[in-house]
């Protein structure tokens, strides 16, 4: 058993980070210039880290598989970013943000990391404003806020429905400035295929140049991964098509541990699947639940009529609608956390009350909000005795100002007008709380290998709250790693430049080349895409919104069989020495096949329900998640090094000194 040391500093929770920061080891400016750092990924975490480390004077090499660092999938985040600013004077505080995040994560995250996240959340907003991020503002010129699920204060900062885009462009521009200054060397279209370790320390990576196929060796004193999550293991997810687990997974194969891989977030409000050809799913921001009311028909015959397109949502009278979230969770209503909202939608659809031809959709209705806003707008603008049509017109204008681009996106995809008809939504895979195991310094169990943002596991427990992913990515990149990396690098000031001709690099490069040759040599009959789709279906069926031991055992077997078939019958066209997206996919799917099995093993091992992990065997009589704190208050970290027959489990016990473990209730 590996002894997993969290390295959480001593002292009071609220003072740990401040004290630690003031006493940790530093690297002097003259030494920083002689130290090289590799940063993989240029999303919020990676770009923020690369830019900040460059500003500090380190020699940074940044890598992305995209054609430009501005394309990372952080860009697609819609709703917002949390910060405990308490600008709304509604009782918010660092402690409250900390507490909400711990509770929202169903008590499966590390207290000290989460508290630090809440502390630095305020600096993030200041930093982004200074960079020129155009956050939404009130008439007085000050920053606006809205609410997100699982909380009762208004602490989410936003830039219409494009918050991720604006934050990423801010980080991208900070990165561009460092590239211009020469502190960061940028490698576009380079995909990390392996981690290189020398004497147990991470000292570099092997990349494939996606334009030429060249296998390249890049050395540095340490390696930082900001490579995102692994939601695409499900094939259909809200992730971008190229998002993948390869950088993280190859690190696992070199000894890093994958923590809580079964903790995946199924987002409740996505546009439902429309056909077999579907390549990805599109999220409708959680911010819509501020004003949208979720419902299904009370009567099954109404649902059936809607499924058969004989009736529309607007045909169902008010008294025949079941606003099931408001009914079941009166305290939080439509703004319950994502895991709770997703499961509730599944329950209604499983009972046959779904509202799309497949029966897998519920309504998200803005009718009431449009009328409410229309009336208030009529009052404000002095329109007396406004007609119903006028109220609708004014109300639609308010809703458009708030959510215009989301409504437009919905209409483009579905061809339906959400101002007139309620939206149809269904849960879809969105985010992965699991990730590489890291300590308080964000360092993995491999010395000198760090993981930031969605790529690590540490802050969101078993369920992430809305608008917290952007917060964590930027916290890790701007305000945590620039300090904590010094704990490692201060011991490396006498280490000369790492030589990329070291035998460890040659061995790793050779093994990458062999993996590529193997993919071409199979020369089978089935496309990479078809295997990925089949893997996704197995994952969704047996490791999706609800799981049980029987299904998971079956799923593990099915994945093993699929993997064997993959290595005997996949077809990869073209050659390595060219731009070859099929080869890129083939290597990624190979890693997803291994990860998928570990996710199932993790879900099987965790005999409790918590957050996004719902084991059917463990639920309350009302169908709520039933945690087992006595046996499972730990981080499950899986080891599956190259040469090891199957994954093995290591544990970090979670200690809660400051919050009392309670059953989560949003009633």
């Amino acid at each position, binding site marked *: 058993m590996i002894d997993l040391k969290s390295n959480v500093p001593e002292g009071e929770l609220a003072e740990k980070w401040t004290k630690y920061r003031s006493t940790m080891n530093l690297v002097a400016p003259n030494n920083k210039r002689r130290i090289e750092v590799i940063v993989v990924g240029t999303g919020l975490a990676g770009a923020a880290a690369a830019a*900040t480390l460059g*500003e500090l004077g380190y020699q940074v090499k940044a890598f992305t598989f995209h*054609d*430009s660092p*501005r*394309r990372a*999938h952080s860009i*697609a985040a819609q709703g917002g970013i949390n910060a405990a*600013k308490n600008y709304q004077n509604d009782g918010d505080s660092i402690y409250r943000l900390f507490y909400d995040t711990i509770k929202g994560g169903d008590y499966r995250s590390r207290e000290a990391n989460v508290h630090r996240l809440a502390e630095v959340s305020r600096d993030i*907003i*200041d*930093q982004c404003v*200074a960079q*020129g991020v*155009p*956050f*939404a*503002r009130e*008439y007085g*010129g*000050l*920053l606006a806020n809205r609410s997100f699920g699982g909380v009762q204060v208004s602490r989410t900062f936003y830039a219409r429905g*494009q918050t991720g*885009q*604006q934050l990423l462009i801010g980080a*991208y*521009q*900070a990165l*561009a*400035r460092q*590239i*211009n200054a020469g502190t960061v060397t*940028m490698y*576009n279209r380079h995909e990390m295929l392996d981690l290189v370790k020398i004497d147990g320390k991470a000292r570099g990576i092997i990349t494939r140049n996606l*334009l030429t196929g060249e296998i390249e060796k890049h050395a540095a004193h340490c390696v930082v991964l900001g490579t995102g999550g692994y939601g695409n293991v499900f094939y259909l997810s809200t992730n*971008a*098509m190229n998002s993948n687990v390869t950088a993280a997974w190859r690190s696992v194969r070199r000894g890093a541990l994958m923590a809580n891989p079964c903790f995946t977030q199924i987002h409740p409000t996505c546009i439902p699947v*429309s*056909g077999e*050809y*579907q*390549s*990805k799913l*599109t*999220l409708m921001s959680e911010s819509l639940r501020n004003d949208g009311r979720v419902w299904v028909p009370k009567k099954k015959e109404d649902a059936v009529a809607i499924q058969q397109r004989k009736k529309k949502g607007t045909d169902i009278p008010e008294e025949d609608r079941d606003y099931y979230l408001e009914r079941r969770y009166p305290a939080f209503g439509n703004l319950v956390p994502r895991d709770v909202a997703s499961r509730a939608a599944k329950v209604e659809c499983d009972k046959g009350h779904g509202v799309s031809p497949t029966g897998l959709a519920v309504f998200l209705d803005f009718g009431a909000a449009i009328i409410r806003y229309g009336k208030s707008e009529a009052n404000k603008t002095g329109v007396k005795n406004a007609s119903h049509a006028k109220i609708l017109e004014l109300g639609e204008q308010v809703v458009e100002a708030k959510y215009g681009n989301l409504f*437009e*996106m919905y209409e*483009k*995809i579905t061809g339906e007008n959400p101002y007139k008809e309620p939206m149809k939504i269904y849960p879809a895979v969105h985010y992965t709380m699991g990730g590489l195991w890291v300590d308080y310094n964000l360092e993995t169990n491999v010395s000198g290998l760090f993981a930031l943002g969605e790529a690590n596991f540490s802050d969101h427990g078993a369920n992430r709250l809305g608008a917290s992913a952007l917060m964590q990515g930027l916290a890790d990149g*701007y*305000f945590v790693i*620039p300090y904590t990396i010094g704990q490692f690098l201060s011991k490396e000031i006498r280490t000369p430049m790492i030589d990329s001709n070291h035998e460890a690099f040659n061995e790793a490069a050779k093994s990458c080349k062999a993996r590529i040759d193997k993919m071409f040599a199979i020369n089978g009959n089935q*496309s990479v*895409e*078809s295997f990925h789709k089949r893997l996704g279906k197995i994952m969704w069926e047996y490791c999706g919104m609800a799981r049980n031991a029987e299904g998971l055992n079956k799923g593990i077997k099915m994945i093993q069989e699929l993997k064997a078939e993959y290595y005997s019958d996949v*077809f990869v*066209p*073209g050659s390595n020495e*060219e*731009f070859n997206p099929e080869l890129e996919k083939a290597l990624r799917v190979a890693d997803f096949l291994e990860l998928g099995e570990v996710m199932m093993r993790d879900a099987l091992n965790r005999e409790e329900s918590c957050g996004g992990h719902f084991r059917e065997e463990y639920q309350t009589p009302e169908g709520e998640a039933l945690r087992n704190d006595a046996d499972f208050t730990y981080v499950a970290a899986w080891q599956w090094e190259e040469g090891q027959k199957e994954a093995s489990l290591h544990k970090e016990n979670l200690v809660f000194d400051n919050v009392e473990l309670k059953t989560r209730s949003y009633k």
Partner: protein
Amino acid sequence: MKLTLKIWRQKNANAQGTFESHQVEADEHMSFLEMLDVLNEDLVSQKKEPVSFEHDCREGICGTCNLVIDGRPHGPNQGTTTCQLHMRHFKNGDTITIEPWRANAFPIIKDLVVDRTAFDRIIQSGGYVAVNTGQAQDGNAIPIEKDQSGEAFDAATCIGCGACVAACPNASAMLFVSAKVSHLDLLPQGKVESAKRVQQMVNQMDAEGFGNCTNTGACEADCPKEIQLTNIARLNRLYTSSMFSTSKKY
């Protein structure tokens, strides 16, 4: 629906390119890229090389996808990226021509894939606020008028796809450059470096080989984010005034 596709195929930057015809069976609910997925699955099943095209988020925000469809960047729909275009806008029996962005500053890599790193270099030349992490004052210290902030946001929604360049008969990058110049100039945080920024970015744009702007307005018409021509006017004004207002030239 049955469609005929005329697709540009080109092995690499130096090879001679040509149009290749393919038949494909599509569903009206598919996105344009899902229709191409169907074609590629078919090609792979015949052990032929699939068509290379770029895409990532498939929800209109990352700026990766870039196809000229029937002569128009991102196709016939106003304010829509290629990935957001759906087949319900085409008819059974249609012939659709698909080409890459065509501009000297965007060399072709393969088939429909082009190199847009010129845009990154333009941003690197000055498209940022020079502020290090940790130096910022409180986010509410400087109030910004709501509409002004909204205007900055409108310019900042540029996704860097390059459709403006592909649409322009001169392959000019003025809409892209002016969107960034405007976004930052409209905010007090970016105003400080405005004169320097506009000169440096225009210099870099010229060095990359983009053409001149002759106010045809094609960029605005095809911009999937509907970035407005007024940004180009603002850039021209800022550029000219910077030449008089600062003694230093960049």
